[in-house]
């Protein structure tokens, strides 16, 4: 990373910058909006309802008085107003002359400022004094109407209790809102701290790997959640990477080692030939022929290394097609069968019918050829070799070559797949030591694998044999 000028910009503490926290805040905002809308609805529903109820009561009272006036006249109404105003009822009354002079009632003047003759509603406040001399202001509602005789009648009601209820509701709603925000925030912080802790372990691994420590591994907590999955995935990836890099390193050393000896021989032969020719003796022709042969050996090794490297670099084999594995195996069997016969080996092939697989036929043919090559090379005369193609119950297609040769001890089986590894007793056999490595690389490039197991077991001097299987995933 290039050095940057120190950031002067204000930065939030780390926990506030985590993705889970940001998500929390976002959801909190959404949740708070929804809660706000709900609170608004509740407010309208409760406060509005209280006002409607008061208004209806005032209306009813007004109606009663107006109908009394209509039936019995002004004096009866005046009487009723005086009686009711003196009573314990919750209503306020005011009866006025047409020019707004008080006739009777419980309040001195009408709170209605402008009256045009139509029934008019108003909201006002009433001041009260209690026994201790404290004054209270109550909110109130009132209705003023003109009577048939031109007099004005006002009926009002104290809404103090309803209003107090509404205020309580609002206060409760505010409290609930604050609780939602605080709880959400705490939850978010807690959540992001947990997630951050899980991420921190992964970030530490990534940092370590970036700094060159390929051995770093993420901690898998065993919670079987997506973090464990991710950690396991990262670990597996690193395992493969480490193996592959170790493989490259090993191959580098091995190539140097494997090419050095034939190149040294080659150089020595050429030098001897040169000295011989200079001295006018010896057989330079033979030395040259041998040198050519050595060169070819070196080139073959190169070709094999290159093929493996390309397959591994590509990850998957190129030009994959659907093909009949038995046909492919039969063609290779046909190529190798005479060689077996020449070496005095019994050769048998067994192919299941109607199989299908997906892959690069050229690479797979070469892999099978290598397996047969190995089997023929290591099985003594009188032995037997079996090539079999079948479908496993898992749907995978298996190519297997079984021989009755000396086999490979279990401890060495993983090792023989590695590049250039040749067991002690096979040092003198021709071959690059790359045969099985190539088969393994081909199998891996097809998403398959190479399996090495014991053959049919010991029979007299023979055995226990080797069974090598190239397994391809179901097409």
């Amino acid at each position: 990373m290039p050095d940057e000028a120190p950031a002067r910009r204000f930065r939030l503490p780390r926990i506030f910058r985590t993705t889970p926290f940001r998500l929390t805040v976002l959801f909190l905002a959404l949740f708070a909006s929804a809660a706000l809308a709900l609170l608004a609805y509740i407010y309208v529903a409760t406060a509005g309802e209280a006002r409607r109820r008061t208004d209806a009561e005032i209306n009813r009272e007004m109606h009663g008085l107006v109908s009394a006036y209509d039936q019995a006249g002004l004096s009866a109404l005046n009487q009723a107003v005086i009686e009711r105003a003196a009573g314990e009822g919750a209503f306020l009354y005011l009866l006025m002359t047409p020019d707004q002079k008080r006739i009777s009632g419980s309040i001195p003047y009408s709170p209605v400022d402008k009256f045009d003759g139509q029934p008019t509603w108003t909201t006002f406040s009433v001041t009260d004094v209690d026994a201790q001399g404290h004054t209270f202001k109550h909110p109130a509602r009132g209705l003023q109407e003109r009577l048939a005789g031109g007099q004005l009648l006002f009926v009002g009601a104290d809404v103090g209790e309803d209003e107090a209820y509404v205020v309580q509701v609002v206060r409760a709603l505010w409290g609930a809102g604050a609780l939602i925000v605080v709880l959400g925030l705490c939850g978010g912080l807690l959540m992001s701290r947990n997630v951050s802790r899980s991420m921190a372990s992964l970030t530490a691994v990534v940092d370590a790997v970036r700094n060159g420590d390929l051995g770093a591994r993420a901690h898998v907590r065993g919670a079987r959640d997506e973090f464990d999955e991710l950690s396991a995935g990262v670990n597996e990836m690193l395992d493969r990477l480490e193996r592959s890099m170790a493989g490259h390193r090993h191959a580098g050393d091995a190539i140097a080692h494997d090419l050095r000896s034939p190149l040294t021989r080659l150089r020595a032969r050429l030098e001897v030939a040169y000295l011989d020719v200079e001295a006018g003796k010896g057989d330079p022709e033979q030395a040259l022929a041998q040198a050519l042969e050595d060169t070819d050996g070196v080139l073959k090794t190169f070709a094999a290394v290159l093929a493996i490297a390309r397959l591994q670099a590509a990850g998957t084999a190129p030009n994959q097609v659907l093909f009949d594995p038995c046909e492919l195996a039969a063609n290779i069997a046909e190529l190798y069968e005479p060689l077996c016969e020449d070496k005095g080996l019994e050769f048998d092939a067994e192919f299941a019918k109607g199989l299908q697989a997906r892959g690069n036929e050229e690479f797979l043919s070469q892999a099978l050829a290598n397996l047969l090559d190995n089997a023929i090379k290591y099985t003594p005369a009188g032995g037997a070799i079996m090539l079999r193609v079948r479908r496993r119950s898992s749907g995978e297609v298996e190519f297997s070559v079984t021989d009755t040769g000396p086999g490979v001890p279990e401890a060495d089986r993983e090792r023989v797949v590695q590049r250039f590894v040749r067991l002690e007793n096979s040092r003198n056999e021709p071959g690059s030591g790359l045969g099985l490595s190539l088969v393994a690389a081909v199998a891996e490039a097809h998403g398959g694998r190479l399996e090495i197991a014991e053959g049919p077991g010991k029979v007299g001097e023979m055995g226990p044999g080797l069974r090598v299987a190239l397994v391809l995933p179901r097409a």
Partner: protein
Amino acid sequence: MRILIVEDDLEAAEAMERGLSEAGNACVRAADGEAGLTAARDGEFDVMIVDRMMPKMNGVQLVESLRREGDQTPVLFLSALGEVGDRVTGLQAGGDDYLVKPYAFAELIARVEALARRRETGSVHTLLRVGELEMDLIGRTVHRQGKEIDLQPREFQLLEFMMRHAGQSVTRTMLLEKVWEYHFDPQTNVIDVHISRLRSKIDKGFDRPMLQTVRGAGYRLDA
């Protein structure tokens, strides 16, 4: 034969020219694709050897241009790229054969000869005859001195290839590529065993062997 060598590696081109000239061929050299195209347009050649990767114009472009102009001269591609895909691209562009570097010189000569010969036998034959050996391609039968020889299908294909290239050296790699259609190099010489089987069928019991082993190169069927 007149051979055009289009190769930007001067040392390799020189070695090729010397070897091919010693084998009795007349060679013309071009060091890049454009020069190769000019040379190919100017002269009549029996075979062209074209390196795939060159400055100015690569081998594939060169051959595509020539094929568009109607030039059908057989082309042998040389390439350091040996993957199946690379070979297919080369052959699709109009190449007739493909040889991966590094190659044995015997291999190069055998392939050049095979390409030149293929051009001469352009017409369709139903009967191949090499000396006493007679092959009926329709009836799938082979006779030597009138005596029928029983061959397996692959042996028949192998002999057919040898007969079509009678008198020429044919390498093991060529046989593996043309008869078996495999392009990899087996660790053991499986081809030798097949040849010796074929030899025992067509030469055994006759006074003179026809299927010869050519040291350092491969095999040759002589009339």
